[in-house]
C-alpha cells in the first residue's frame, strides 16, 4: 500500500525582496513537513520572516525558490485559479487583522468561503455556524453588520470564518493578538477541540512563547532560517 503523502511540505523555501544591492533575503531555505492532524506553532521575533513563511505556505505569495507541496502536489506548477481553489478548499486563514468584508453581515462573512466555492449553506451548517458563534462569544450577532462589532469581536468572527468551512489546515497569524486573555484562552480551547474532534491541522504563528507552549510542536524562525523544530515536551508531558 502506497504511503500517504504529508499534508504540507515546505522544501528549501527562499524569499528575496528587491534585487541587487537592496535585495533582502526574508527566508533562507526553510524546510519542514507538517502531517495531517498536527497542532504546531511557528515562533520568532518580529521581522524574523514567520509571516512571510505563512504567506508562502498559504499560497498567497510565491517563493523566490523552493517548493510548497500539499498532499504531494507541487503548488508551484499550479495556475492562479488552481492556487485559488486550494486556498478556498484546503486552507482556512486567520490573519493578524480580521479582514472582514464591511458590506456584509457577520453570518455572511462566516460563510463567504463556502459561497466562493459555490456551495449552498444547508440547515446543518447553519446550526454549526450558530454553535461556533456561541463558542466564540458572538451568539445573537449573526445578522449584525460586521462593521458594527468591536475589534475583538471582529477578530473572533474571522476565526469563525476560518473554522466554518472545515478546512484540512488552519493557518493562523497571531490570531489572538487583539483579544484579552480570557477570550484568547477560549479561542485556543476551541482550536484544540476542533483539532481533536475533526483532525484539523493547525499551524499558528506567534511571537508569544506562552501561546506556543500550548501547541504540540514548535518551529522557531530566526533571521529567515528555521533554527529549531521540536516537539513540545512540556505539552506532551501535560497530555500524559
Amino acid at each position, binding site marked *: 500500500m502506497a504511503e500517504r503523502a504529508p499534508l504540507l511540505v515546505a522544501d528549501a523555501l527562499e524569499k528575496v525582496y528587491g534585487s541587487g544591492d537592496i535585495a533582502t533575503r526574508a527566508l533562507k531555505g526553510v524546510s519542514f513537513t507538517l502531517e495531517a492532524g498536527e497542532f504546531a506553532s511557528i515562533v520568532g521575533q518580529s521581522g524574523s520572516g514567520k509571516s512571510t513563511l505563512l504567506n508562502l505556505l498559504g499560497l*498567497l505569495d510565491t517563493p523566490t525558490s523552493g517548493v510548497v507541496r500539499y498532499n504531494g502536489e507541487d503548488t508551484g506548477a499550479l495556475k*492562479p485559479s488552481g492556487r*485559488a*481553489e486550494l486556498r478556498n478548499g484546503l486552507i482556512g486563514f486567520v*490573519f493578524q487583522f480580521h479582514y472582514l*468584508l464591511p*458590506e456584509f453581515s457577520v453570518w455572511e462573512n462566516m460563510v463567504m468561503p463556502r459561497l466562493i466555492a*459555490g456551495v449552498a449553506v444547508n440547515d446543518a451548517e447553519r446550526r454549526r455556524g450558530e454553535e461556533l458563534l456561541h463558542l466564540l462569544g458572538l451568539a445573537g450577532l449573526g445578522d449584525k453588520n460586521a462593521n458594527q462589532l468591536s475589534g475583538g469581536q471582529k477578530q473572533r468572527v474571522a476565526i469563525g470564518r476560518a473554522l466554518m468551512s472545515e478546512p484540512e489546515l488552519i493557518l493562523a497569524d497571531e490570531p489572538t493578538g487583539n483579544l484579552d486573555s480570557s477570550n484568547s484562552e477560549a479561542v485556543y480551547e476551541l482550536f484544540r477541540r476542533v483539532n481533536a474532534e475533526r483532525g484539523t491541522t493547525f499551524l499558528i504563528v506567534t511571537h508569544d512563547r506562552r501561546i506556543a507552549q500550548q501547541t504540540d510542536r514548535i518551529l522557531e524562525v530566526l533571521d529567515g532560517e528555521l533554527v529549531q523544530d521540536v516537539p513540545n515536551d512540556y505539552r506532551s508531558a501535560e497530555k500524559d
Partner: protein
Amino acid sequence: MLSLRIAARFLKTSPGQSALIIAGIAVGIATQVFVGSLITSLQADLIDTTVGSSPHVTLLPPDGETTLPGSYAERVLDSEPLATDAVAVRDFSAIYADGDESLPLSVKGGGAAGIDGIYGLSGRLVEGAYTLADDEILVGAGFAEATGVGPGDELSLLLPDGRTGAYVVSGVFDLGAAAANERLAFTAAQTAAAALGLETDAYSAIEVQLSDVFASTEVAERLASELDAVAVDWQATNEELLSGLQAQSGSSAMIQVFVLVAVALGIASTLAISAVQKTRQIGILKAMGMGDGPAGRIFLWQAALLGAGGTTGGIALGYALIWGFSFAPVPFSIRPEPQFIAISAVVGISVALASSVIPARKTSRLDPIEVIQSG
C-alpha cells in the same frame, strides 16, 4: 452568482455614489431618447408637410408619346407592394382672367377617390364640399382669396387651345403651401379630358404614393422597367430638402455620440474610483479563494446594474421630457420611437459594460498578498 450579489452589495453600501452615477446615465439616456425622438419626429413632420400630400413617384409618357393608359394606375397598385395609392391624372394649364388681372392655374383631373388618396383633399377643405362631378372644380385658398371666388361660384378659365371653359367651384382647399394654394386646382378626369380634347383612356401622368417615402427611387426604377413610362421620384426633385434632412441626421448623431462618450467617461471614472475603494475587499475575497474571473466580474455586474438602472430611469425621464414637450407651442408633436428607445437601452448598457473593462481587468490582476501585506 456570488459576483452579482457582491456587486449589488457594494452599490447598496455606497448609496450616494450609486445614485449619482445612475442619475448621470439617466440624464445621458434621456437626452438620447429626447433628442433622437425630436429629430425623428421633426423630420417626419417635415417630410409629411413636403411630400405627404403629393405624389412620391410620377409616371410620365415615354419619349415620343404624350399620354399613358389609365390602366397603369391599377397595374402599379397590383405589382408594387409599397404603393398605397395610384391615380391616373390629366394635367392642363389654364388662365383665370378678370379684367386686367390674370392668374395662371395648373389643373389636375382625376378620379375623386384617387386624387383624395394622393392629396388628402377631403381633410384639407376650408370651404364647400369634396365633390368632383362634371365641370366642378376645387381651388386653393390662395386662389380663392385672390379672386374672391367661393363654393357655388362660376369660374371661367382660358384653356390651352384658346377656348374658354366654364366650371363651378365645389370647394376650397388648403394644402399648407402658398404656391399650391394659389396655382393648383382639381377637376374630374372627364372634365380635364374635355378641356384637353383627349380620348377617354388617355392620361398625362400616373401619380403614386408609397408607404415608405424614402423607397421612391427604387420604386421609380422598378416601375420604369416594368411599364412603358418615364418614372420621376420626389427625391430627385427635392435634393435640397434631402441634404437638409441628412445634415440634421448627422448633427443629431453627433450630439448622441458625444452624450454617449460623456456617459461612458462618467461610468468609467466612477467604477475606477470604486475599484480603488474596494481593493481591500477584493484582496480579501481572493485570499479566501475567489478566482480572477469572478473577482473581475464584480465590476462588470456593477456596471450592468448601474447601466440597467440608469437606462430605465433615462427612458422614463425621456418619456417625461417628450410629454412635457407636448405643452410647448410648436406646430408638431414628438412621438417616442420604440425602436430608437430600444437601441438607446442597448447602447446605454453596452457603454456601461465597456466602461467597466479597465477596472474589471485591474481587479482580476490584483494579487491578494498586496492587501494582506499592507495590513
